[in-house]
């Protein structure tokens, strides 16, 4: 087959800032940059409003103190650090806790309509690891409310939105980022963006796993592009396996059952009818942190006390139909429509699902800038905020706080440096070649087959519980996958061709998968979202460092460690003592 790109044709757009990703983080960044007078382009792989943020269910954490007046940023900060097992970038955790309430108020001003307390304020619900009832919510579709509010604000902010365009490479002028290369999904035609600064807001890497709550978009494009451009990936071994994904039917295996079910009083039982969290975390029970609950479920299943489809039981029916329909309407319908289970009448079967990527691109806390000048990252694609384990509800607030900061950071950077947006033709031609070579290969495999096997492998060998031997096997297996992906074959044209899209994304998934496996091998301890069967305890050394992966000159992956930022004494003092237990939902 002839290469459809023998002469590279492309369209060019120029902006001060290019934001890649239109979830909560990207939209908030774009709104901020635009408000500061910058010309902003916003690109996303799907239609506007369909990013992952739309799926968030349970709520957005912010210490408004509307329900528990004792709450404040200091407690939120402490809870976040404890939840992250102290590997968090403390400065990010601090800024997040301090600024989240204002970001919520701003959303209200822009039209968000949260559920209310009896005295007419925003209602807040309890969630695992949060001392107080803290999650602002709208039933169980909080993400929809947030993304729609930002989207409606965004369309009146003078943004240039490029929907259904995929960025495949960041482009540089010397050391600095000066643009990005991509294609329109619809036509397959190439598009080049020139920009003085680029903000990555591309989300996570969950599609590298078989059982996941993540959509096709989560192929780690942002992480991999940043890595190729010279940025560092940090803490990639920390993957959040959410305790409650659906386990049946197969088609929806992994689909999320929101933590709000437990927040609203849901109880976990094994096949013997035991509330097994009593043995694991008798104080917090079901509202323990996600890493602990997931491991507990895993153990019940492994030891033969699981439910018929390989999970455990989650029961909220004791709260009564009226309450459930008001507070968890989406879950009621989801379980009824997809699994024939009426949760107002009896338990549902659930099990852990790959949910959130704590690791990602290493950034500076205040500005969100990466190691590469002009390249910023915010939201799930950025690392540091959540350390080794994210608390539920802390992502939506993270998007708002650091999305805004990314817009601001890009503005300051441009003001201080007035960087050029030069791009060389060779670099553009190389970027085009990289994504079209799969049309030249007639002998390679179908991308779907490779993807499925990669997912099976990652699930089996780099899943919830890991061992040295299996991680070695995984790293070895990834070499094989790399050879297969290099030779992948794509049929059809470049016009809206999902097979082609997947072939390109596979390469990104491989980079992320390798970083996860290598960092997991390096960290010989268990902490948060990283569990080593052969090293089940915390290790003092590993309490003091983050993992980093970066690309070597020869293209191979270097994995190492960097010391944590030293935390000031007054913040350390805030973290003393145990995390409190929230009162039940009002």
């Amino acid at each position, binding site marked *: 087959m002839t290469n459809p790109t023998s002469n590279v044709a492309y369209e060019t757009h120029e902006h001060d800032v290019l934001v890649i990703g239109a979830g909560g983080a990207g939209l908030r960044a774009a709104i901020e940059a635009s408000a500061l007078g910058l010309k902003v382009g916003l690109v996303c792989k*799907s*239609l506007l*409003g*369909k*990013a*992952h943020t*739309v*799926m968030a269910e349970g709520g957005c954490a912010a210490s408004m103190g509307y329900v528990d007046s004792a709450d404040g940023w200091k407690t939120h900060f402490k809870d976040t650090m404890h939840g992250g097992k102290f590997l968090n970038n403390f400065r990010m955790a601090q800024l997040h806790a301090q600024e989240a309430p204002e970001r919520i108020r701003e959303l*209200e*001003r*822009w*039209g968000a*309509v949260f*559920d*209310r307390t*009896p*005295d*007419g*304020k925003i209602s807040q619900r309890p969630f695992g690891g949060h001392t107080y009832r803290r999650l602002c919510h*709208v039933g169980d*579709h909080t993400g*929809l*409310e947030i993304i*729609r509010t930002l989207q*409606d*604000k965004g*369309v*009146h902010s003078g943004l240039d939105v490029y*929907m259904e365009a995929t960025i495949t490479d960041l482009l540089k002028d010397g050391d600095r980022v000066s643009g990005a290369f991509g294609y329109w999904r*619809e036509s397959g035609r190439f598009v080049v963006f020139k920009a003085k600064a680029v903000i990555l807001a591309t989300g996570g890497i969950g599609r590298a796993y078989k059982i996941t709550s993540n*959509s*096709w978009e989560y192929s780690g494009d942002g992480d991999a592009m940043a890595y190729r451009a010279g940025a560092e990936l940090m803490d990639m071994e920390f993957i959040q396996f959410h305790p409650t994904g659906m386990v*049946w*039917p*197969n*088609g*929806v295996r992994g*689909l*999320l059952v929101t933590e709000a079910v437990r927040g609203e009083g849901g109880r976990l039982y094994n096949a013997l009818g035991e509330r097994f969290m009593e043995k694991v975390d008798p104080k917090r029970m079901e509202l323990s942190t996600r890493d602990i609950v997931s491991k507990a479920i895993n153990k019940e299943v492994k030891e033969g006390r699981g439910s018929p489809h390989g999970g455990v039981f989650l029961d909220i029916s004791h709260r009564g139909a009226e309450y459930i329909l008001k507070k968890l309407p989406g879950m009621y*319908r*989801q379980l*009824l*429509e*997809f*699994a*024939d289970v*009426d949760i107002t009448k009896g338990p549902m079967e659930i099990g852990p699902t790959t949910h959130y990527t704590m690791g990602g691109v290493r950034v500076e806390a205040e500005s969100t800038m990466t190691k590469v000048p002009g390249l910023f990252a915010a939201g799930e694609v950025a690392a540091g905020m959540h350390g080794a384990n994210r608390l539920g509800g802390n992502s939506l607030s993270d998007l708002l706080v650091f999305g805004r900061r990314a817009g601001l950071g890009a503005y300051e950077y441009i003001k201080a440096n007035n960087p050029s947006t030069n791009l060389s033709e060779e670099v553009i031609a190389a970027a085009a070649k990289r994504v079209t070579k799969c049309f030249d290969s007639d002998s390679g495999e*179908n991308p*779907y*087959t490779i993807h*499925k096997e990669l997912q099976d492998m990652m699930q089996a060998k780099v899943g919830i519980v890991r061992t040295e031997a299996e991680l070695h096997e995984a790293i070895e297996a990834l070499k094989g996958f790399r050879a297969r992906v290099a030779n992948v074959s*794509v*049929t*059809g*044209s470049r*016009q*809206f*061709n*999902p*097979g082609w899209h997947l072939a390109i994304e596979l390469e990104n998934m491989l980079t992320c998968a390798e970083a996860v496996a290598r960092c997991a091998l390096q960290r010989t301890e268990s902490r948060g979202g990283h569990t080593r069967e052969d090293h089940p305890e915390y290790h003092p050394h590993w309490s003091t460092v983050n993992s980093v992966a970066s690309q070597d000159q020869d293209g191979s992956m270097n994995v190492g460690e960097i010391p944590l930022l030293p935390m000031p004494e007054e913040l350390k003092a805030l973290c003393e003592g145990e995390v409190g237990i929230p009162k039940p939902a009002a």
Partner: protein
Amino acid sequence: MACSHPTNAPHPKANSASTTIKGGTKAVAEGTVATFSVYRGTAESGEMKTYQVPVAEGMVVLDAVHHMQANDAPDLAARWNCKAAKCGSCSAEINGKPSLMCKTRMDALPLDEPITITPMKAFPVLKDLVTDVSWNYRVNERITPFTPKSDDTDNWTLYQEDVERVQEFRKCIECFLCQDVCHVIRNHDKKNDFYGPRFMVRLASLDMHPLDTVDRLQAIKEEAGVGFCNITKCCTEVCPEHIHITDNAIIPLKERVADRYFDPIGKLKGALGLNKSRK
């Protein structure tokens, strides 16, 4: 007037294929293979192609599409994201009925005849099941955003009962199925005159927000063209979020427009600018 389903559906059984799922409808026998007839092509040319897909327990139509992509048609274009009826990406017409593919279970469809999947008819086809829905985004841009009385949210008091009806409208996932089914858009292509049910819902959510200060009636009547709706309720029937589009959004808007513009006292008040304080 009752909703009569799209008349130009490609499949004769269009009206009998119900996609309402009431837990545990019927079990599909093991080894069952379903036949699909799927639109492949662009706006200019295309054809219905046949695919065979083994049916598994609890399977939805989107699973079948993924099976076709992985095995027979790697370049079959379809949109999806959440696979949980939350994002509104996977809209198409299944046996002629506008539906979410991720929410339509195979055990709710008759399997003795081919199941047709075609793109939404009201929008131009880009490729296969993917349509150009950009018109909807342009309509949204024309709507004046929420404009509250004051920015001091700490002093806002909003009770749950005050926001309940607005919250119903804000559940919209922008699947555009209501736009697809509405005959004003689908059969009469009045895209220049009528915003369609999705944006009637959005206008209602703003108009009924207790703190919004904009008088939107003129826009609802003129630019949005609320009068084009003749209350067939087809939109309400297809809405996967079960929003009472007609009863709770459109009819109240129509009534307010009628009060203002067609009732002599309302007209007078409008002329004197007295309606703005209604909220």
